[in-house]
Structure formats: structure tokens, C-alpha cells
């Protein structure tokens, strides 16, 4: 479903992505992890077309990303920090997106209901707390039944209850055959969700393995331990 080939991107002198390639079919859940500033968010933005790569190709469902735009209707994106027009109310943002996307099918309002967002529909985006903003972002990501979900730090800022609700939704959708790409610092919560792990460091993709394979290789039970084991091995000497 995703095919990333030889992506390169630099901001000025800083090489953020250095020849990154990976691919993944549907129905899996990929954890995209790595230390801060390793290029995770940039990679995601490349997938979304928000950042234009200097070289390489990205294909989503066999459609090249750099030329097209229609592919984005297959993607649900939950940004790390949601940024919305401050003057608009929650309800208006949701209605506007449906309107602009001209989405006529049944909307997936599970998240809206779970977070009881409808009560807050009249709140202006500018007045929202970080957590509520995350809830809105999550709701929008799931709203249009996308086949590919990209979640950038989905649980950061959410209270434990909401976090749990979101994870349940992710599990449910995974079973529906959707492809998830999740970044998170809280590795423990990824344990229950992910099937694959992509590890990046200094703009390079170091490995792309199934969670089971990783655990076997490192002999660790927990993802977090497996990763730290790996990081120790690869520490620059």
C-alpha cells in the first residue's frame, strides 16, 4: 500500500532524510520510531505531500505522491500538534472539511461520540486546550473512513481514559484491514498495537521488521527494551 523509494530531503545544509526506502501492505500497523530529530515527522509530511522531497518517489496505492493529490482522500492524518483556523468553531471545521472534500458517504463519528465532542461544537479552536485539540485531530483523522491512518504522537496530551478509547478505536480499525503508521515516544503503548517496527536514525532507515522478529532477535519481551537494546548496539562510537 505504501511504497517509499530513495527519499532524500534536506533543509538547507541539514540532511533530514537520507535515502529512505520502505514499503508496506495493508492490514498492518507500523511503528515509526527513532530518536528526536531523526526525520520521522518529515517522512510523514512527505507522505502527505506537505514537504516536497528533493529526490525519490513515494507511491500510495500505486499512485505517485509528488504529482497527485487525490491519494490524500485515502489518508487520515492526525498531526503531532494540530493547527486550525482560530476563528472557526469545532463544528465548523468538521463541516468545512466534509464540505471541501465533498464527502457524501457515512462519516465515521465513533471518535466524536467517544470523546463527546458534539458538546463542544460551539467552541472556537483558538480557545481549546492541547488535549481537546488532539481529540479534534483524532476525530478528523478517522472521520472520512481512510484506508491509511498516519498518527503522529497520537496519545501525547490525552488523558489516560481518552488515550485508551483512541487505542481501542485503532485496534478496531486495524481489524478492518486499515494500514496504520504511528509514531510515539511512549513505546509501551505501542506494544499492544503494532505489528511492524520501522526504526530511523539521523535521517536513515535502520531497519524495518515485524515486532515478533525484533523481539526474537533481541531476546527481549517488551518493545521498549528491544529498542533500547538495539540503540545501545548502534550507538555511535
Amino acid at each position, binding site marked *: 500500500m505504501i511504497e517509499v523509494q530513495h527519499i532524500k530531503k534536506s533543509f538547507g545544509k541539514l540532511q533530514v532524510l537520507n535515502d529512505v526506502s520502505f514499503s508496506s501492505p495493508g492490514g498492518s500497523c507500523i511503528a515509526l520510531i527513532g530518536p528526536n530529530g531523526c526525520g520521522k515527522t518529515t517522512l510523514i509530511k512527505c507522505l502527505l*505531500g506537505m514537504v516536497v522531497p528533493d529526490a525519490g518517489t513515494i507511491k500510495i496505492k500505486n499512485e505517485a505522491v509528488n504529482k497527485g493529490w487525490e*491519494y490524500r482522500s485515502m489518508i487520515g492524518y492526525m498531526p503531532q500538534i494540530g493547527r486550525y483556523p482560530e476563528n472557526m468553531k469545532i463544528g465548523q471545521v468538521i463541516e468545512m472539511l466534509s464540505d*471541501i472534500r465533498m464527502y457524501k458517504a457515512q462519516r465515521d463519528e465513533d471518535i466524536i461520540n467517544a470523546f463527546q465532542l458534539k458538546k463542544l461544537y460551539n467552541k472556537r479552536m483558538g480557545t481549546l486546550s492541547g488535549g481537546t485539540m488532539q481529540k479534534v485531530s483524532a476525530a478528523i483523522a478517522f472521520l472520512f473512513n481512510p484506508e491509511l491512518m498516519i498518527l503522529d504522537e497520537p496519545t501525547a496530551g490525552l488523558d489516560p481514559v481518552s488515550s485508551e478509547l483512541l487505542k481501542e478505536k485503532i485496534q478496531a480499525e486495524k481489524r478492518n484491514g486499515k494500514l496504520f503508521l504511528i509514531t510515539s515516544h511512549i513505546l509501551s503503548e505501542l506494544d499492544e498495537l503494532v505489528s511492524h517496527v520501522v526504526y530511523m536514525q539521523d535521517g536513515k532507515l535502520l531497519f524495518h521488521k515485524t515486532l515478533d522478529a525484533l523481539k526474537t532477535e533481541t531476546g527481549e519481551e517488551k518493545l521498549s527494551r528491544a529498542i533500547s537494546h538495539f540503540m545501545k548496539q548502534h550507538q555511535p562510537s
Partner: protein
Amino acid sequence: MRKIVKYILLDILKNKIVLVYTAFLLLITLSVFSLEDNTQKGMLTMLNLELFIVPLVSIIFSTIYIYNSSEFIELLVSQPIRRRSIWLSIFSGLAGALALAFIAGSGVPMLLFERSVISMMMIGLGVMLSVIFVSIAMLAAVTTRDKAKGIGMSILLWLYFSLIFDGIVLFLLFQFADYPIEKAMIGVTALNPIDLGRILVLLKMDVSALMGYTGAIFKDFFGTQKGVLLSFFVMLLWIALPLLYSLRKFNHKDL
């Protein structure tokens, strides 16, 4: 695209600054025409105000608006929408709102006071200048990420078009005083939409007689249908070139 324009227009209207701008233009236009006993003089005063205020408000408001819509732009970019549609929608929304504000605030009262070719030209010029300076603002805003720098740049651009350019022209006129440069000056005016508009309207007014030999040469060119069409085309270029260039930049911009 039409839908995005709709949301942008609604957002601009909610902003109220455009409404204030309209009211301000209305106030100025009404006071100019009620203070001046003859409409010809009123028109001249209006021309000066139009050449000063319209570009200033258009470029500054647009630049600030674009920076303030960065969240909106970011939100839309991750949606299945062409970047071109987003950018052109913002342009259309701004240009439409500012042109409408000008027509409502200045154009309609002007027509009520004097229904003549000159009023029509003044309205045409006001609309053109509004759109041109939105287009230039789009370019200024896309060039730099820093809001303060961007606004600074658009103030400088405005200063350049309304003052510095004319200063350079004056300097050149004195430098080349011994050469017949009147004809070359026609070409030079094309480099500044404000000057071009000012001369086009002045030549239609009686005051053109004051412009002597130079005025006669300009009249020979701008007075003809060909000249007017060509100036119109140059104005269109002033809209299209900055817009297209900014679009190119926006298409490759990382958000």
C-alpha cells in the same frame, strides 16, 4: 475550489477589517465629494487617495491574512486538495473581498456623484490596483516564513511602488535631461502599475493639458485604443506574474 473561496470570503468578512476599510473608503469618498464643489477636483483628490490607500491596504492586509491563515493552509494541504486550488482560492478570496470593498466603498458613491468615463476608469483602476497588490502580497508572503519579515517586505514593496520608484524616475529624468527620453518614459511607467494607472486616468482628465509636451507624447500613446488595451494588458501581467511566481514557490514549499 469554489468552496474554499467561499470559506475564505466568509473568514475575511468575519475579520471585520475589510468592513472597516469599506466604511473608511465610503467616508472619504463622501467627504471628498461633498467638500469639493466641483466633481472634477473631487475626482483628482479621489485619484490621489486611491493611488495611496488602495495599494497600501491591499498589500498589508493580504500579507497579514496569509500569515494568519497558515494553520488553515496547513490543514487544507493535508486534505485531498490541489495546492494550486488552495493558493488560487486564497488569492481569489482576498482579491474578491478587497475589490468588492473598493467598489462598495468608493466606486458606487463615485458613480452617484459623477457618471462618466472617468468614474468608470477610476473604478477600473481601483479594482486593478486592489488585485495587483494582493498578487504582490502573495509573493511577499510565500517568500519568507517569518511573519515580521514578510510584513516588512510588503511595506517596503508598497513604499517602492508609491514613492521610491518615482524618486528613481525623477533621478533618471535629471540624469538624462539632455536626451529625448519622453518616449522611453512610456516604457518606464509600465514598470509601475501605480504610475501607469495614474497617467491613464490623468490623460482622460482636463488636467492633461498641464502636462505640456510630455503629456502630448503620452496622450499620443495612451490616448489610442491600442495604448489603452496595451496598458490593460500590462496591468493583467502585473496580476499574473507575481501570482504565478508565488504559486510556483508555494507548490514547492515545505509546510
